[in-house]
């Protein structure tokens, strides 16, 4: 069966590749277009035992990749070469190590049909059933290698079907793999079919999808299902400024390493509703996920994003503050329930309170708990639930453990043509024990306050000062963070930053994490040189944000697209 499918796939692939040469003339324009992007980010690691910077045998490490894309009218082909033989330390830690052509495809697309053979990324709905995606900065690449067909038989009706084997880092032995994914999605957008609806301020769409994973069920102790399916239904309704969106998903029995090999079905519900008009936006979201971790191979640990077929969104506020990087909430597909509330308000410009340029305000609140679990009787003396239905759960009941909570306020305002001011205050509660596996069962509580001042010297030169303070008695204690950035538009950024862990309870750990960086940008090329100590978290400088591990050294990065 699989061999026949692979054979069909090869024919499809070759047919797609040959389309441009067969249809010379009308459907090809000129000689087509080549584009691409290249990224190199290297680091020379210096030892520093105090900050826990990992000591590595290879001191010089780099992540390098090149994407090439050829497009000619309706036809495109592309490939990516990745060189990660000695990758940055955090990539090595997650097993993202190797080299080769990890992505290649041929694609034909017109208004009615799109056919892809080779590697592809795809998302059904909110990603509850399928989300093949990449996040290169984090070392996530869950692309599928196979075939995809998208059909639009009538404007407003979209049908997708996919079949593929999921990428597993640098393991290219697709023929030996005993697992694959297939599925379909259909969406009907009513206001595209009935344009009069939009005129009256209505929008409605409904969709549904089904994704199934096949995996060789060989196991000595358990009778494992060869196929595991996930289905979902979703809708969106809008009337003028009011919107409501929802998706419900259900996963049929999927014993796996992450859930302790239990046979319970998984389910998820996501509802988000919002009201907005010019100058005001309010949104409220609810999420509940239970046993929804869904992977190509059941023995994959659920601590990495490896082989994840679906993706459950986390609804908390997405912080970019350097000091809160260590306390970023990661969604818990096997059990979380919570709410998020956010309001954005713009005090209009040229008013007494809003000032000449207007003022932007944001308030947000989110609270996430684990789910209620009533465990069934343990099947053996060790209390293992392996092979049972695991537990039952009351659908709307919040579990007794708080996982995460944020409450925050942000304000930004231009004072005049030179000065701009931003203020924020956030209160964060974070369960280190359940989210990061730390022994300490006390909740982390932190007060974070920040001031950002921008002074525009003239039309090209600007100075930015970012001061943040995190007050806490738990974990690593209190921090102070200062960043001064000087920019010369459009080419240069220079920055000096220091994060000082002055409140650490251990005297020798009251460390200064200093950092200096220079960045040169021309068009779509960015060259950046950086020296210093970096703590784990999200770092934003030179106009971009990326995730970084604890490290000390000299870094060089070159990113370009053409």
């Amino acid at each position, binding site marked *: 069966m699989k061999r026949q499918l692979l054979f069909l796939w090869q024919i499809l692939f070759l047919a797609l590749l040959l389309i441009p040469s067969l249809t010379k003339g009308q459907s090809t324009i000129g000689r087509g277009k080549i*584009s691409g*992007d290249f990224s190199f980010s290297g680091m020379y690691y210096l030892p520093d035992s105090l900050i826990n910077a990992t000591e590595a045998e290879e001191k010089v490490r780099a992540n390098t990749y090149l994407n090439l894309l050829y497009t000619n009218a309706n036809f495109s082909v592309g490939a990516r070469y990745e060189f990660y033989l000695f990758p940055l330390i955090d990539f090595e830690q997650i097993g993202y190590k190797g080299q080769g052509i990890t992505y290649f495809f041929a694609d034909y697309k017109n208004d009615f049909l799109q056919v892809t053979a080779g590697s592809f990324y795809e998302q059904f709905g909110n990603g509850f059933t399928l989300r093949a995606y990449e996040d*290169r900065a984090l070392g996530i690449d869950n692309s599928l290698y196979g075939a995809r067909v998208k059909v639009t038989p009538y404007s407003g009706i979209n049908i997708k079907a996919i079949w593929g084997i999921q990428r597993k880092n640098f393991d290219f032995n697709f023929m030996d793999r005993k697992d694959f994914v297939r599925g379909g999605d259909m969406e009907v957008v009513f206001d595209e079919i009935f344009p009069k609806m939009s005129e009256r301020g209505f*929008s409605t769409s409904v969709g549904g999808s089904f994704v199934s994973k096949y995996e060789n069920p060989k196991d000595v102790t358990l009778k494992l299902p060869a196929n595991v399916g996930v289905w979902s239904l979703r809708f969106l309704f809008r009337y003028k400024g009011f919107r409501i969106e929802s998706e419900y998903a259900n996963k049929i029995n999927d014993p796996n390493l992450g859930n302790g090999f239990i046979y319970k079905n998984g389910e998820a519900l996501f509802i988000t509703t919002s009201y907005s008009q010019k100058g005001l936006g309010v949104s409220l979201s609810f999420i509940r996920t239970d046993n929804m971790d869904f992977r190509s191979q059941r023995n994959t640990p659920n601590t990495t994003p490896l082989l994840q077929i679906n993706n459950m969104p*986390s609804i908390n506020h997405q912080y970019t503050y350097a000091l809160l990087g260590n306390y970023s909430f990661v969604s818990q597909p096997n059990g979380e329930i919570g709410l998020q509330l956010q309001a954005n308000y713009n005090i209009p410009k040229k008013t007494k309170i809003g000032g000449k340029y207007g003022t932007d305000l944001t308030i947000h609140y989110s609270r996430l708990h684990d789910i209620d679990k009533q465990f069934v009787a343990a099947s053996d003396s060790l209390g293992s639930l392996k092979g049972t239905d695991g537990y039952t759960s009351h659908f709307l009941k919040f579990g007794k453990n708080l996982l995460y909570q944020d409450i925050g306020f942000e304000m930004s305002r231009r004072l005049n043509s030179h000065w701009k001011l931003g203020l924020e205050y956030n209160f964060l509660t974070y369960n280190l024990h359940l989210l990061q596996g730390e022994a300490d069962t006390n909740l982390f509580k932190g007060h974070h306050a920040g001031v950002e001042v921008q002074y525009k010297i003239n039309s090209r030169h600007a100075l930015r000062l970012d001061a943040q303070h995190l007050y806490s008695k738990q974990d690593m204690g209190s921090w102070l963070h200062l960043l001064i950035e000087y920019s010369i538009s*459009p080419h240069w*950024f220079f920055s000096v930053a220091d994060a000082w862990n002055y409140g650490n309870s251990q005297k020798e750990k009251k460390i200064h994490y200093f950092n200096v960086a220079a960045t040169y*940008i021309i068009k779509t090329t960015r060259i950046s040189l950086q020296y210093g100590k970096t703590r784990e978290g999200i770092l934003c400088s030179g106009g971009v944000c990326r995730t970084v591990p604890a490290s000390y050294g000299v870094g060089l990065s070159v990113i370009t697209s053409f």
Partner: protein
Amino acid sequence: MKKIFFFILFCYFVNPIFSQEDSQTAKFSTLPSVDIKTLDGKNFNTKDIDNEGKPIIISLWATWCRPCIEELTAIAELYDDWVEETGVKLYAISVDDSKTASRVVPFVNGRAWEYEVLQDVNSDFKRAMNVVDIPYLCVLNEKREIVWQHTSYAPGNENEIYEVVKKISNK
């Protein structure tokens, strides 16, 4: 299989280099055809990005990207004047994924931005444009060709963007 693929691929990439014809069309690139969504959930193909022969600005951004918001806020303060003088239209394409995609509408309205906002929830357009990091911004001329592009934001970049827009509109 891979060998055949790369042989054919190689031919495609080598072909245009030795080709003399159509050198004019190769000067600027146009937008790829990618299906993304409008804020109402309707399908939108990126090749339909249009402004009736007037200049177009495309910005790739996200609600969690501070420099992106800084850039779009800086432009928002000047946008009324820009539109009046040049007829320019800004398409702000959000790459927010499911985590924050549902907050894009209230965010945009809450900031009182008057841009044309679209959603690229699985970064398909971003990938087709070969964009590595956001913020990314490009300017399209009357033929919808990409004549200027830039990555990252420094205060004052908006002046250069407007110079480019004015040049196109005065043509």
